């Protein structure tokens, strides 16, 4: 066995954080959990829905909800941590560019849920600071945290691997996941830093199927 190769794969993309943040400013409020909490769905989610797992979450606005509050619209979900300097900004870039690559009528309207691995440091305040620093529009972006047990379960559900390092950093799978309106995983991409055209198509298709 050789010494393990760094698998930290960074393609040579440009990071355009500040420029792109301006572009998403006009999104209409579409996020299912924005505003007053909707009544809980009366039916149980279908088999194959990750909403079968009631993951307790607290978001950057201090709101407490469970994962299935996302139900009713397609959504993008990923996991990250705010102390991540290199890969996680590129995850946000990929999400921004995915949103802005969609057809006009659904552009910047797909709810995004990012759940932190770092239950020690990513308090609602820390998440709020990150949302502000990155100009993430409240209308579609939700940065959230859970407790240690449920974070592990959510990652297992999403087939995301992560490991805390002694330095406080995390190794983790970087993946964007598309859920349909019922919480079934219908797409995933490992492309970060830019939009994955095939993934954008999938998102558009799901939104078209749901938004009449």
């Amino acid at each position, binding site marked *: *066995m*050789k*010494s*393990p*190769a*760094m*698998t*930290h*794969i960074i393609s040579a993309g440009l990071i355009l954080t500040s420029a792109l943040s301006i572009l998403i400013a006009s999104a209409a409020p579409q996020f299912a959990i924005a505003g007053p909490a909707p009544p809980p769905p009366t039916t149980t989610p279908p*088999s*194959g*829905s*990750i909403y*079968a*797992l009631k993951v307790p979450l607290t978001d950057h606005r201090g709101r407490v909800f469970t994962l299935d509050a996302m139900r009713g619209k397609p959504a993008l979900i990923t996991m990250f*941590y705010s102390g*991540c300097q*290199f*890969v*996680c900004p590129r995850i946000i870039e990929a999400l921004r560019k995915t949103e802005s690559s969609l057809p006009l009528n659904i552009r910047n309207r797909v709810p995004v849920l990012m759940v932190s691995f770092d239950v020690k440091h990513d308090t609602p305040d820390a998440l709020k600071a990150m949302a502000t620093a990155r100009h993430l529009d409240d209308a579609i972006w939700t940065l959230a945290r859970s407790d240690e*047990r449920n974070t*592990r*379960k959510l*990652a*297992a*559900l999403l*087939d*995301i*691997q*992560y*490991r*805390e*390092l*002694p*330095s406080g*950093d*995390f*190794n*983790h*799978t*970087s*993946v964007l996941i598309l859920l349909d309106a019922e919480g079934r995983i219908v797409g995933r991409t*490992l492309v*970060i830093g830019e939009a994955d055209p095939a993934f954008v198509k999938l998102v558009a298709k799901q939104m078209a199927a749901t938004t009449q």
Partner: protein
Amino acid sequence: MTPRSPPRQARAVVSGLLALCIGGAVSAVARAADYVSIAAGEFASVLASDAQVKPSSAATFAMRTTPVTNREFLEFVNRNPDWARGRVSRVFADTQYLSHWQLARDLGDATLAHQPVTRVSWFAAQAFCEAERPGGRLPSWLEWERVAAADATHTDARANPAWRAEILSWYGTASSVILASVGGTANAYGIQNMHGLIWEWVDDFNALLVAADSRSQGDPDKLQFCGAGAISLKDRDNYAVLMRIALLSSLKAVDTTRHLGFRCVIPVSKGPK
């Protein structure tokens, strides 16, 4: 890489008979599982990313002395029908979940009762542990590895070639369809069946990020790590333990296999025996 029946059939038979004597007549109420306290202590894991800094210290916990059996898991399913085969959500277990039972709520074959339950997903194993005792969960890899390092007389027998050879012989023994019953010789911690019977889930199985180039299969692009990259392994001669990591790192939480079972741990503050 199929787990094999243990070389020590005789011990297993004795313990199986013992278990039958204790638990055989009980149907409605199960005999409570034994948990043994494992005192906090430092331990040099084979996971180098932890060990390079300092020996990993595991807080005190209590571990189930034996893996969970089919009968125990059936009792759990009877109390929690959402975990029955056929009812469980597909996001929590694959299609082979408990497929060796005759019916969703009937083992069928009486010899299964005291064998370790297998074909259980990580989610199902977690749910069992949470239901069995307050604070119950699967052991972390470090907790499991530490207890598994013991032989009958030493808490850390990993440097002993005989210990390694014995474990490796299990991996290499001819496959047996019938698993032995749980029980048998306890290790220095008082824990049984850490080797030689089944593979076991751990709580943080999805934290075992083995570098893509050392995985035997799968898409090398599957893992893109933030931070310092994948775990590396020290003590590479310790195949007996590395085999476990290789298997666990390849699993998804819904996966089930004929030789993959589990045991639980609980926090000690809850007053284990």
